[in-house]
């Protein structure tokens, strides 16, 4: 019989333990992998630097301060052809954010509607939605953008048909024009006292939330159900309307003018065809994916929940809004995040229809005119990375608020 005379000494460490001891082995391999990765990056980086130097090229961002020299058709901030390349990049960034923001909202609306309706018991409605989802999901977004833009430019009336003393097409309601170059809408003219009207409008929106909160509290406390539909509408419109007339109609409308120019309608707001095409294409394409997420989310809610709610006497609309959707959201939100990221990234296809997003300004014209390809592409990568991670972060915060609280 042998006895253990020498217990393993605590704290003694031999180098071979890095490989043999399972406590250290994984760390050892991770360190080795990290070193290899750093070496590989260093090798590629130095290779790039050497080759660029050999070709007489240097990485320099000085061009950002030079005048851009070209014009952009949609600018949300002041910009002329004498502005810097940096300013042109900012114009592009804002245009990208604008189309991404608009498309995220409409894609969500399309998606939720189509997803809910696809589960409808009405045969025709559910089949129509299936066709929508399958067609839009399975054709590349690039082709949708081109098709929609081509249909717009080919089928809408020309801008010229709205012009002159006796135009072929009159302005719709004297205010709107739909041409193959975009939509012309009236712009508000802020007269004296218009701020009061705006203030009343903002106050009434706050009032709506207050009323709804009160109605909810009353429901929970006493079980009395107040109507929310028509009071909301009334609070939204009536006070603003009264303020508008009391102040003597301070807000006017600047309608598009068919006589000011021989080529285009002047005045009002113009929403260009490229923006509409890319916005609509991204919304309807991504909407099809979101519809599938929504359907999956709804079907993930156990049928017993619906039946229990029905047994309590809730009507179908309330079952969906109060019981099913809040639970389905937990399943819907994570894939929704990646759809929002897809929209943002797919908006880089905007150059296809001549929309001046960041890929078109910084990654297109500026890159071309300065020839600084590597610099511009690195900046582009940085921008999309930052914007995608930001969207992700915000949506994750929302997801954390919505997800099942496990206590």
């Amino acid at each position, binding site marked *: 019989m042998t006895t253990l005379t020498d217990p393993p000494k605590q704290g003694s460490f031999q180098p071979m333990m890095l490989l043999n001891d399972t406590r250290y082995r994984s760390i050892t391999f991770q360190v080795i992998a990290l070193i290899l*990765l750093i070496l*590989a*990056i260093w090798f*590629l*980086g130095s*290779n*790039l630097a050497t*080759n*660029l130097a*050999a*070709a*007489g*090229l240097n990485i320099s961002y000085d061009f950002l301060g030079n005048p851009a*020299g*070209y*014009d*952009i*058709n949609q600018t949300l901030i002041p910009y*002329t*052809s*004498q502005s810097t390349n940096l300013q042109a990049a900012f114009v592009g960034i804002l245009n990208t954010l604008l189309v991404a923001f608009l498309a995220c909202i409409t894609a969500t609306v399309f998606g939720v509607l189509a997803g809910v309706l696809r589960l409808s018991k009405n045969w025709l409605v559910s089949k129509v939605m299936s066709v929508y989802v399958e067609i839009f999901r399975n054709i590349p977004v690039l082709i949708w953008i081109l098709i929609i833009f*081509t249909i717009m*430019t*080919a089928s809408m009336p*020309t*801008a*010229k048909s709205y012009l002159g003393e006796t135009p072929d097409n009159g302005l719709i309601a004297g205010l709107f024009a739909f041409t*193959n*170059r975009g939509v012309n809408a009236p712009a508000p003219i802020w007269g004296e006292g218009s701020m009061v009207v705006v203030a009343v409008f903002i106050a009434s929106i706050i009032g709506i939330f207050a009323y709804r909160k009160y109605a909810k509290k009353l429901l929970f406390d006493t079980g009395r159900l107040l109507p929310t539909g028509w009071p909301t509408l009334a609070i939204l419109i009536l006070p603003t309307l009264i303020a508008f007339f009391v102040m003597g109609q301070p807000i006017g409308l600047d309608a598009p003018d068919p006589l*000011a*120019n*021989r*080529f*285009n309608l*002047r005045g009002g707001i113009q929403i260009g*065809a*490229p923006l509409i095409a890319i916005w609509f294409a991204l919304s309807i394409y991504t909407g099809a994916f979101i519809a599938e997420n929504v359907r999956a989310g709804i079907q993930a809610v156990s049928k017993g929940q619906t039946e229990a709610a029905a047994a309590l006497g809730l009507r179908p609309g309330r079952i969906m809004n109060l019981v099913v959707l809040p639970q389905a959201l937990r399943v819907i939100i994570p894939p929704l995040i990646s759809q929002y990221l897809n929209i943002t990234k797919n908006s880089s296809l905007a*150059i*296809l229809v*001549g929309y*001046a997003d960041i890929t*078109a300004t910084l990654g*297109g*014209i500026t*890159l*071309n*005119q*300065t*020839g600084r*390809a*590597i610099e511009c*592409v*690195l900046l582009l*990568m940085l921008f999309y*990375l930052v914007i995608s991670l930001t969207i992700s972060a915000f949506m994750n915060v929302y997801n954390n608020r919505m997800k099942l609280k496990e206590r």
Partner: protein
Amino acid sequence: MKTSVFLGALTVAGIVAGGAAAATMDEVKARGKLNCGVTTGLVGFAAPDSNGNWEGFDVDVCRAVAAAVLGDPQAVEFVPTTGKTRFTALASGEIDMLARNTTWTFSRDVDLKFTFVGVNYYDGQGFMVPKDLGVSSATELDGATVCIQTGTTTELNLADYFRSNNISYEPVPIETNAEAQQQYLAGACDVYTTDASGLAATRATFEAPGDHVLLPEIVSKEPLGPLVRHGDNEWGDVVRWTLNALITAEELGVTSANIADMSAAPGNNPEINRLLGTEGTLGEMLGLSADWAKNAIAAGGNYGEVFEKNIGEATPIGLSRGLNAQWTDGGLLYSPPFR
């Protein structure tokens, strides 16, 4: 994810930069083919015909260089490039030369490090409008929507022209000529602007070319020519003197019809003899065979023949020689002497 994207970009950039150096001529000879960058399709300058054979004014320059270097005008791999991709393609070594109606400018020459070997077409930026707009001058274009091919000097010229004349316009940047054409015809823009030769070529493909007019204003100088990378002067010389050989051949009356006779034996004109290699060692100096220029000229004819065949007045494009006539005829074409 972050690192892998970065790594990928670095790898691409590294490979791209790595291919840049080394003697281009040896590479072309070893490969047995010339990689020539052309447009994605501009009738008359470079476009594939119904059988897929590239033809056009710029294409013939590529073929002449291939004939001079490799003895075979068909030994060309045509690489279609857009306004955006052309410089990267050349800088990275994907193509050996670029013959894509590219304007010779200071910054492209000096900052982008390319060598323009000469000018094969003196052009200028013009405007095309539908006739029924009733516009007769570019100064009447205030408020117009203008289609531009993006990534070209025309974008900058346009901004400068409208700014200096203090008139407003709305630019619509378009990626390729074909798309711009479609937008223009659909009436999504009032005006299409690019090099006047390109406008003429585009108009020639319309169903009713007579419904569109080119405005008289030419708002810029656009000397178009083939270019190569900086730093490989031997290769630059080959392309430069091939172009000069075509121009000189026209000046001296050497055509594709009579070149076989002329190159068979030395004639009376010593410059023709030197050009065609029956006298002197010009080919050897370039590192090519003695009959390099003969091959180049035989490929598509001299400059005048190439011009008339592809874009001249007898073609649908219908460009007159204008500035592109020989200096002896009052034009700007002037080749340095072959001696």
